[in-house]
């Protein structure tokens, strides 16, 4: 599995993680290109359905990146997202898919380094796990 390049989707909150990702860019911090970002106004908007959809479409890993605890622009959207992530992790587990493929991560807008490090660590973690057992059947 050395050559395995995981597909990773990151749902990022506009106010923090997305900004942090931009900041990682402006600092030219390198992280694996496997991570692709979808911007949301708040992680509280990320539905369990969206996370599942990413796996259905072929993601090997998904993470939801929101503001630090207590820092949500909408009070508690990030904690709601965290609860939802835990719920979907349970579904994945029931389906025999490693729940670690889904994660909730928190960071502030200023944490460009953390964004890059997280992207790196998450990618490595998924690389360890190998391809998601539900890769869609290529037509």
């Amino acid at each position: 599995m050395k050559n395995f390049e995981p597909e990773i989707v990151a749902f990022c909150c506009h106010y923090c993680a997305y900004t942090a990702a931009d900041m990682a860019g402006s600092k030219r911090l390198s992280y694996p290109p496997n991570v692709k970002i979808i911007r949301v106004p708040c992680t509280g908007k990320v539905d369990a359905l969206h996370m599942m959809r990413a796996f259905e479409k072929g993601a090997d890993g998904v993470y939801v990146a929101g503001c630090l605890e207590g820092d949500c622009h909408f009070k508690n959207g990030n904690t709601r997202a965290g609860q939802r992530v835990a719920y979907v992790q349970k579904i994945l587990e029931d389906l025999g898919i490693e729940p670690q493929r889904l994660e909730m991560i928190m960071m502030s807008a200023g944490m460009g380094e953390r964004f890059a490090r997280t992207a790196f660590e998450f990618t490595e973690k998924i690389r360890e796990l190998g391809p998601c057992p539900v890769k869609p059947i290529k037509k």
Partner: protein
Amino acid sequence: MQTLKNIEHDRMTGLKVLVIGGGVGGIRAALDLAESRRNVILIDTSYSIGGLMTRLDRTFPTNNCDLCTVSPHLSESSRQVYLDLKPMTRLETLTGEAGQFKATLVTEPRYIDMEKCTACGECYKQFPGAVRFTPGLDPRAPTCMRYPQATPYAFSIDMDKVTDIKALQKVCKADAILAQDQQQTAVVDVASVVLSMGAELFAPAVLEHFGGGRFDNVVTTLEYERIMSASGPFQGDLVRVSDRKRPKKVAWIQCVGSRGINKGDVPYCSSACCMISLKEAMVTKERFAENIETTIFYMDMRTFGKDYELYLDRAKNDYGIRMIRSRPHSIVEEAGTKNLAITYALEDETLQKTEEFDMVVLSVGFRVPGSSVDLARRIGVDLNAHDFIRADHFNPVVTSRPGVYVCGVAQSPKDIPETMVQASAAAGMAASNLPAAVDLPETELDFVPEKDVSGQAPRIGVFICDCGLEIGGVVDVGKMVEFSKAQPQVVVAKAVGYGCSSESMLLIEEAVKGNDLNRVVIGGCSPRTHETKFQDLLRRSGLNKYLVEIVNLRDQNTWTHMNQPKEALDKSFHLLSAGISGVAKNRPLMDQTLPMSRNALVIGGGVTGMTAALQLADQGVKVYLVEKNSTLGGLAKSIRRTIEGEDVGLFMARLAEQVSVHKNIMVLTDTIIVDHSGVPGRFKTGLQTGLRMNYMQVDHGVTIFAVGALPNRPDAYGLGIHQGIVTQLELDAVMEDHPEKIKAMSQVVMIQCAGSREPENPNCSRVCCQAAVKNALRMKTLNPDLEIFILYRDIRTYGFYEDYYRQARNMGVHFIRFSLDNKPEVWIENDRISVFTEDGILGRKIQFEPDCLALSTGMKADDETTEDLAMMFHLPRTGDHFFLEDHVKLRPVDMSVRGIFIAGTARSPKTIPESITEAHAAACRAQALLAKKEINLGAAVAKVDGTKCAACLICVRACPFSIPFINEDGYSQIDPAQCRGCGVCAAECPAKAIQLLAFEDDQIMAKVDGLFGGLN
């Protein structure tokens, strides 16, 4: 920048404010004025704006990347309709008087047509000598501009160095080089002027004992910033100049050129340098290597700003930065290694020490450049003893010439937050010479009517920007265009060079119209900075602005994966595919708006609250000024004189009188805030007044928090036990009311940091050092024979207060240092006060028996009040219970909730003039918001499909703002005017009856699908 000429034309009518200097202060002032619908001309002698801050790597105390924090301001400046930016321009003369000045502006030739220049960098590549770019240490030309998002986005040519103008013109594909460009002079009517020229940094080359600029590895703090910067000479790698090797031992030397001892020094304190060095040392450890040994040589550690003391503690305790209290007198370079030997003496040791370092950073302070002195003389504003602009003692942004205001380092040395505060304050003051904001006409950009695209199949245009080499240098734009063309529903795909240049924007606009496109994808940089720009483009093209999707190819792809071009290209395909399939689902949306309430609520009737209220009321804003005590005045009422000798009582009485009789101010004393609701621009707050607690509700568009702080009265050093032990505040009153008591004294001891900088109150109270010096000086005047001992930890007489500190020393006031772990002790025996302290220099305990012991107790936050308000208004506070501003650096008077501002000691301890400045700043920021007729709430609001709703109440319960309710028809209803757009309800709705507009499920799903589909 699209219509510089047109703007020029439009702006010839109506009064303007002239802002001089395009650093952060000038930009802030100009933006504040423009936001409050005042016409502004921002001039700078340089060819692009940004000033010193754009050259810093990161700023303290957040250690954020400077570029990232400042760039939104820069791009905003080019968008503002009211803002006219004139680089390479100086003010020659200023005649007339406030309200009707005539300003003569001289613009130097740029030899480049900014309309045409795309900043491709070709000219610089070919003629590096003649095309201007970053000065200083930078040996390479990253994008040939000082920083990546330069404003204006164009080069300039140094014609003196051009040998063959034809050849130069030839390399320019945009045909932007104007060989015949000439100096231009214009006379404009301006109502007021804001001076924000900033200052230079001291060049230490004159200092022989520090190498006189000859040693490779001795750099200034600014040069060190450039070395660490990603856009710097070593691409952000920390190495020594001499051998390009990572240093293992770096030393900083403070006060180089400041607090004058040496040749070429100035006597004042440059205020910002201590924090800069601490930051550099911390970033060194954080970013490069934990084990790089960092040492700071200093005299007094002046971390007096908000939460700066905590920063110092972190530097010492968490990062292990070595702090040595000493002023080294020389640096010697070792011949072979080019290492540097520093010789220094410790205060409690007689022997000198010599230590070797790999690199030495000289912490240089601010200097007034000759050009500023000339300018001041030309326009007739007075300078102070140090050639800074002389400012009013109570209102530091007011100069000697009415109608001319000053901010930032041009007034006194300071750091960025204080510059931002002064900038806003100056802008507010400057605006008062113009018609009141509420009377100004609204100016709207004209857009063509929107086409109805509903029911049409998506016709998508994809435009890909190369952003110079930023995108195009990493991935092949052509391949991306080809890829996009192959995607379903894509009608046009094009490369557009610099997508955000006016030329490219025009090209896109034409393509949209010509191909009858109804959806647009822009592949470029971050939507965070550029979405609005392209949304405007769509509106000009007759499309709803929500039909565009920005694909972040630069910040989140080519910048981060520049070393993996193949992978970056593959990722860009994914991202484009997601953007294309996403945009197909975009729908035209209407922004939600609410009419703005033009009232202001000012909480706190101290000096800050009154000043802010008055400023707003003068601008025609109806102000409710709420004070919980029965009289106005607050803490400042108990201060008698300022250090400059001004009568505070008189000033306060006048201020209170002005406020009380103002027809636009309703003063509510004995009044408590009891409830709060609403959205920025339409707040509703409940007040209860008097002992009967009569209730009333007020509508207001903005709120200013000026609740102040409390004088600290720590249970320390016998305070409250003996009548001879007093606070500085009490001493101030004694001197004023009973000078004879002072005359009868023979010895006075003062203890600094009483109850501050200690674990229970870790921050510095900022005002106490100058208060002690002030009182000492005044006592010495009253009683020259009086012996005064000031026991201190660090003397923090920042800026020009240093003059008073020096004066006190000269007058024989004794300063004795102590440390936190060896604090003075106070005994009372037979009604006599005894103070014991360890004298570091003598190395033994000494005892005083003073007639009076004055404690510098500073201030602490009014925990109960700030807590109450923070809960009601949902605002954050700091660990020591002050209110926490939205951005400690760039938005010091804005709170995290829009429309709520903070000023004065409710934010952090500060002096009366500083509080007044903040009050003006907050009022100015408030005014900018009030100048809008409507509050734009964006389009991202939740919408309920009543036919699907099961009225389960989940949205009602989950909404963080309690907006949804079940209506009479039995389904959930969400008021778009109140919805904040987080989407929590949409994500939790079990019936999928709620959608968050602009982020609807099908849009998000389409993006997910796009990321994985359409490839191969």
